[in-house]
């Protein structure tokens, strides 16, 4: 009975979310926030990959922004400097970034815990240095502008309104794909790995291979987001892909809940709204407040804020339905 109630609420929540998302960019609703909403969508795409990685393999990546940047730069350079069709460029970028993650995945995943985190940190920073230094390709520290819009035939994605739907289309597609992965046999295997690697291995799951696959998947998601990012701003520079950006992504994943797919929207949304809307009122205290909030969330709800809220809600439901059956 609990299962039925829970899924009824879940469907309701998802439907409400979809309607809300569709209505946002209209000026009579929340249109002035559509720029912000586009960035939330992009962040969500990267965060979902991170959630899968951290939540289902127990390993953290402190360099995820590097994959975001790889997708961005590949798309930018291919579509602007080499006049490649932007969609093709996005595909090439995703394949290249995924391939790169595959190659470095095996050596990196021989490490664990803190050491793995540090390796990803080092990798992310090296990518950032390359983005900055290989100026003949990347435009150097000031980046490059004039990246073309995405278009389908004669329909060009030249306004924020159109790009909002494009970004959220990709975002929701990724969320649904990830949801399917989690529920499938692969997903159950993932959870087994996180629970106990030796047990998983004993029933024939190739643990190392799984970890690398999840890593590659998260890289591909990030790359797609990076491509959409440059076709939105029509500009790319190394700044959005530094260490702090990777940290912010981990924060989004953690606030959303490390094993929660839909929590990624919550995590990305609250973090973005916090740093781009609410903290503006506090002038220069915003850095300190951001750090404080990070600490408080990690101390009191380490399983993720969204997950905690879901738990609270589920418990309320339990008590509510118990009372119903009692009366």
């Amino acid at each position, binding site marked *: 009975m609990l299962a039925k109630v829970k899924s009824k609420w879940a469907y309701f929540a998802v439907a409400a979310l979809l309607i809300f998302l569709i209505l946002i960019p209209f000026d009579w609703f929340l249109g002035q926030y559509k720029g912000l909403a586009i960035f939330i969508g992009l962040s969500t795409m990267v965060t979902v990959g991170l959630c899968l990685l951290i939540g289902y393999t127990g390993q953290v990546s402190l360099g995820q922004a590097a994959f975001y940047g790889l997708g961005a730069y590949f798309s930018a350079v291919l579509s602007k400097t080499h006049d490649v069709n932007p969609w093709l460029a996005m595909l090439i970028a995703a394949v290249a970034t995924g391939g790169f993650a595959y190659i470095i995945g095996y050596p990196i995943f021989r*490490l664990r815990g803190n050491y793995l985190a540090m390796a990803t940190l080092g990798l992310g920073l090296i990518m950032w240095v390359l983005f900055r230094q290989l100026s003949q390709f990347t435009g150097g520290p000031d980046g490059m502008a004039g990246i073309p819009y995405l278009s389908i035939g004669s329909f060009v994605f030249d306004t924020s309104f159109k790009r909002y739907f494009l970004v959220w289309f990709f975002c929701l597609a990724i969320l649904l794909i990830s949801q399917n992965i989690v529920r499938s046999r692969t997903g159950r295997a993932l959870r087994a790995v996180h629970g106990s690697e030796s047990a998983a291995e004993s029933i024939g799951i190739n643990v190392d291979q799984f970890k690398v696959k999840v890593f590659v998947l998260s890289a591909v998601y990030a790359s797609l987001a990076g491509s959409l990012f440059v076709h939105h701003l029509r500009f790319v520079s190394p700044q959005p892909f530094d260490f702090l950006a990777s940290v912010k992504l981990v924060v989004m994943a953690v606030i959303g809940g490390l094993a929660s797919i839909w929590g990624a929207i919550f995590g990305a949304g609250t973090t973005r709204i916090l740093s781009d809307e609410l903290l503006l009122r506090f002038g220069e205290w915003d850095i300190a407040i951001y*750090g404080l909030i*990070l600490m408080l969330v990690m101390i009191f709800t380490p399983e993720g804020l969204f997950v905690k809220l879901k738990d609270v809600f589920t418990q309320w439901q339990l008590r509510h339905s118990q009372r119903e059956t009692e009366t």
Partner: protein
Amino acid sequence: MSADQFVQYFISGLTQGSIYALVGLGFTIIYAVTRIINFAQGEFVMLGGMLSFTLASSAGLPLAPALLLSVLISAAIGAIMYLLAIRTARRASVVSLIILTIGAAIFIRGIAGELWGVDFVRPPFFTGSSSISFLGAYIHPQALWIIGTTIVVTVLLHLFLSYTMVGKALKACAISPRAASLVGIDARAMALIAFAIAAALGAIGGVVMAPLTLTAYNVGVMLGLKGFVAASIGGFKSPILAVVGGILLGIVESMAVGVDWGPFTSAYKDAIALVVLLLILLLRSGRLAAEERES
């Protein structure tokens, strides 16, 4: 590269390396005793330098008390950070702890930016700024203080860990937390002491380097990273190796500029630390993985 230049590269690298070593010591102490990587370590170095500026230059205190006070205040902040943040987090996962210390680092940096503003400052030199000639090269007097402090601190730390009760207890925790608690050592008290000591070490580094390297609210990030690489060379267990690692890193960075090798330009100098880090992690991945599984 002439002989004189070689000596100069070596001495400059030695100075920088000593800075990295001092930062790396703090990482090592905390990790060894608590298995936590403290991302806020660089911020303690920053605090040491900023506090010494406020106390010595703005408040006009005489130098020695100002430096001592800076270190003590930083140590206190380290202890408070442990008590309020880390201890409260209780049995948190590795990921949570990493993010927690990152949050603490961001918080400390933000407060520092508010209190001291964004401009950089220079605390007074300990013994002036006339460069000293040495074996065909030149060294700044403050650099001698940096190198000297690193040597003295390393020796004192070694003596402390090997010959005092508290030090030996800390070492026991580093070797095996479970065995240590079995013989009655309070792990949480040891963790508190480790944090305070690490903060003090970082502040000592900050205090002695700030007159030469200039300091501002945001210097913690870069210094923290370099110090982290130093600590990783020491395997996060051995303070002596961390110091050796830091000094080696400084010397390699310096020599690389002098070597004039093909595509490498000085623009990639700070990538050296990152490459070293990755190499170490990958080369020792087998042993590191085994260690993680044990703890």
